[in-house]
């Protein structure tokens, strides 16, 4: 057998061995395995659009305290022009909450009793390093570890505010899509695009470790 043919044969054997080992290791690993057929980057846009045709998205069922906070925030937030609001609506299929709205919901007494729930879509390391006080964690990529707790909270919650790192982070959007898969109503879901970065930049309270 000549050298080139032998090299190709060796490469094929090693490649096949790599595939077999990889598939086996992925199947038996305790956590963090990748599901071969799952689209981890589904934003659920089509489903949200379909839902919004049936029932337009809204942000008008806050408790009186939160509603006052939001109206006050809207009045004083001169930078939030209608053009920017339109941009946000086009960029995100889900209902979007601004920083001031998030603060209003955070301070809403209803939040302390589980009426509104903050969901942190980041991974264990990031969540334990710091998160919005009271937020539960639901890592989109390891949803099987969190889904029971998430569904428990979602059932009783009026609003579910989902965030990740902010900036280019899309994990909160993917998590919203996951929640649609579990039939959590779209009009309960609120995306906070500013996320963790904006929350900490503005000096808001932070909780560390597990809650």
């Amino acid at each position: 057998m000549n050298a080139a043919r032998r090299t190709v044969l060796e490469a094929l054997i090693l490649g096949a061995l790599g595939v077999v080992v990889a598939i086996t290791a992925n199947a038996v690993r305790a956590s963090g395995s990748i599901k071969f057929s799952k689209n981890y980057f589904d934003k659920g846009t089509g489903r949200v659009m379909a839902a919004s045709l049936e029932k337009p998205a809204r942000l008008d069922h806050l408790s009186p305290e939160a509603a006052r906070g939001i109206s006050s925030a809207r009045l004083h937030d001169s930078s939030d022009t209608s053009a920017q609001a339109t941009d946000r609506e086009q960029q995100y299929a889900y209902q979007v909450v601004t920083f001031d709205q998030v603060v209003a919901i955070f301070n809403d007494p209803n939040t302390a009793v589980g009426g509104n729930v903050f969901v942190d879509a980041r991974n264990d390391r990031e969540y334990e390093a710091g998160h919005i006080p009271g937020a539960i964690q639901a890592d989109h990529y390891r949803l099987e570890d969190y889904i029971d707790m998430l569904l428990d909270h979602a059932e009783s919650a009026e609003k579910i505010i989902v965030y990740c790192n902010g900036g280019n982070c899309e994990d909160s959007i993917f998590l919203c899509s996951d929640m649609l898969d579990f039939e959590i109503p779209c009009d309960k879901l609120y995306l906070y695009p500013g996320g963790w970065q904006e929350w900490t930049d503005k000096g808001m309270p932070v909780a560390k470790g597990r809650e």
Partner: protein
Amino acid sequence: MAASKSIIRRADESGVPLLLVRLVLGGLFIYMGAMKIADPVDFLRMIRAYGLAPETPPYFLNGTAIVLPWLEVVCGIALVLGLWVRGATALIVIMLLAFTPVVLMRALQIHSAEGTPFFKITFDCGCGTGVEIIWIKLCKNTGLFLLSVLALLSRSRRFRLTALIA
């Protein structure tokens, strides 16, 4: 010229240069593969960021994230042990040729989109070595490519597990 050829050939026949190349390449690929295996989801996100594979259907993207790190480890082990050295090196060359231009293209995209000077661009390329200064990463990959070519050209069969078994 003939004398220098003779020196190179004699050095190659000693098996030491190939052994060193195998240990460096093999060790690095075992390390980089293991880092990716430790957090496959993170690696999945990294390769998605390059936008090379379609997100739907998800099989190609997920399959790459599952298989590639283990392929690196298998090739690395083969090189360290001296089993199917040419085949393992050929696979490493293919991986380097596939991914190094992709890293370069992403750096150029960042350069043109954000105006960051090329030599100051840093990001986690998903290579298993964390956030790196990209021009240094590209130089390292070029070095690994040259080492791989050396391993492919070597005629030595010493210090190999196959030589011990035979």
